[in-house]
């Protein structure tokens, strides 16, 4: 009835989401330089070509480095801010949170350019470090959202119970707070890593001579003969990202059943 129509819609919508994405793997195995039907047979030579592409591998390394550092720093900053806002009744907490979330509502191009200006004015060079800073701007709001949600579902009585049972501040953190926060921390790390890894606009303005992977891909899009290789790269990234996301969700739901136990 109503359910059937809605269900069909859901499936159609899902198809709309997946079809463009499936173009990547399908044509990455296609034995032709032209991305069009009919398909010309199966090949893995594009994947093979990736192995020899040192520029791509260098860019990949850069993206991993930037992603890792961004993830760690954003999660750390998100963690302290989330704890501050949920555990203490601070005046102006709302304004502070709004300010920290501002990058979500400013076009990335503006973020990238304004940082570019800052670097120019302070004489600092464009570099991967600058990209990290830019990515942190974008990622901290995400980390904050995940971690605040996690802190709010956390029964504060648990820390008091631990103190009541004889553990001082540090041991309470180690035995109760940290284990219960860990899934949220891991989720935040993964989310910020993936966001940074995929981020193009800000990196485009700030990276200088060192390219991140999206910048490398952007450069390749001009050359039709390199297209299948780019698709192969995309297919690999897709698979790896899917794996990471599933892992993140699995970890995030460990040890926490909804609603929060203890009540």
């Amino acid at each position, binding site marked *: 009835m109503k359910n059937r129509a809605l269900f069909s819609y859901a499936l159609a919508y899902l198809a709309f989401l997946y079809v463009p994405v499936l173009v990547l793997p399908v044509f990455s195995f296609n034995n032709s330089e032209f991305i069009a039907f009919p398909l010309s047979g199966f090949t893995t030579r594009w994947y093979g070509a990736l192995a020899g592409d040192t520029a791509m591998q260098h860019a990949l390394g850069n993206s991993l480095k930037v992603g890792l550092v961004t993830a760690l720093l954003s999660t750390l900053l998100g963690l302290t801010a989330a704890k501050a806002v949920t555990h203490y009744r601070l005046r102006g907490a709302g304004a502070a949170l709004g300010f920290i979330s501002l990058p979500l509502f*400013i076009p990335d191009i503006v973020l990238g350019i304004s940082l570019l200006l800052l670097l120019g004015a302070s004489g600092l060079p464009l570099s991967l470090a600058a990209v990290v800073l830019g990515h942190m701007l974008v990622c*901290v709001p995400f980390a904050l959202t995940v971690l605040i949600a996690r802190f709010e579902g956390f029964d504060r009585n648990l820390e008091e119970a631990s103190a009541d049972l004889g553990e001082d501040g540090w041991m309470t953190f180690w035995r109760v707070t940290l284990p219960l926060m860990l899934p949220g921390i891991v989720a935040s790390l993964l989310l910020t890593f993936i966001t940074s890894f995929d981020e193009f606009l800000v990196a485009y303005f700030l990276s200088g001579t060192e390219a991140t992977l999206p910048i490398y*891909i952007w450069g390749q899009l001009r050359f039709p003969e390199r297209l299948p290789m780019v698709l192969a790269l995309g297919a690999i990234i897709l698979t790896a990202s899917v794996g990471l996301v599933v892992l993140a969700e699995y970890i995030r739901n460990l040890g926490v059943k909804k609603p929060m136990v203890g009540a």
Partner: protein
Amino acid sequence: MADRGRNFREGYALLAPTLAVMGLALAAPLLLMAITSLKSQSGISFSEGWTLSHYGEVLGRASYRSLFLRSVLISGAVTLVTVALAYPMAYFVAFHARRKFIWLVALTIPFWTSYLLRVFAWKIILGFNGVINSGLMRLHLIDQPLEFLLYNPFAVVVTLAHAWAAFAILPIYVSLEKIDRSLLEAASDLGDSRFRRFLRVTLPLSMPGVIGAAILIFVPTTGDFVTPQLVGGTKGTMIANIIEVQFNAVGNWPLGAALSLVSMAMVGVIASLFVAAARAATRAAR
């Protein structure tokens, strides 16, 4: 409960590093951008003196004005299409899906691919020799490739609607999920049909999610130059393309800064008006 009353300083100390970094990386640069937009430019470097001429150019040139308009219209269309398409999907998962977790993961997986490649995928799909055209021709449904698919605002809207779908689904889903089911039962008990109940209870209560999604999509899409550049052609250029050009090819940073700030201000005003209007409409509908 324990630390609420005391140890304010600890709390502020915890908050300080994050605020400091965000302040440094956000406030200072934006300020700088404002300053830059007021500088005079001669050739490719700054010259002495301050000027409002860049703002004059931004607001005065008809081509810029029409570009602003087009960008707003395209982003508006994207927002509308994305939210409208996402709402039934989110509704399905919130009310009718049994394994919600799996649906949500399935819905977010496409977005964990490179954004560039997703845009490029649409270029491939919509192109002259692309997937749709070659497929349709192979099936002998058309003789000539369809030309209206690519290099125009239509392509931009389709591509962006696809790219930002997750940002619509998740906020709408969350606000639908939060609706107390007993409210719906009460509405039925008081005589509403399913459709009326949807209009009078579900839709208004999900408005915060819808408004949030709309803002989350509208604002960033105005600043995207990747999609217009890859699939927009000349007819689908947006303001961000011009800004990008000022900073790279042309080197007129003050003009670029002025363009950025004007577009940000414009977008901010439109977004605020939208939120105010949506809130007023929701209140009036009761």
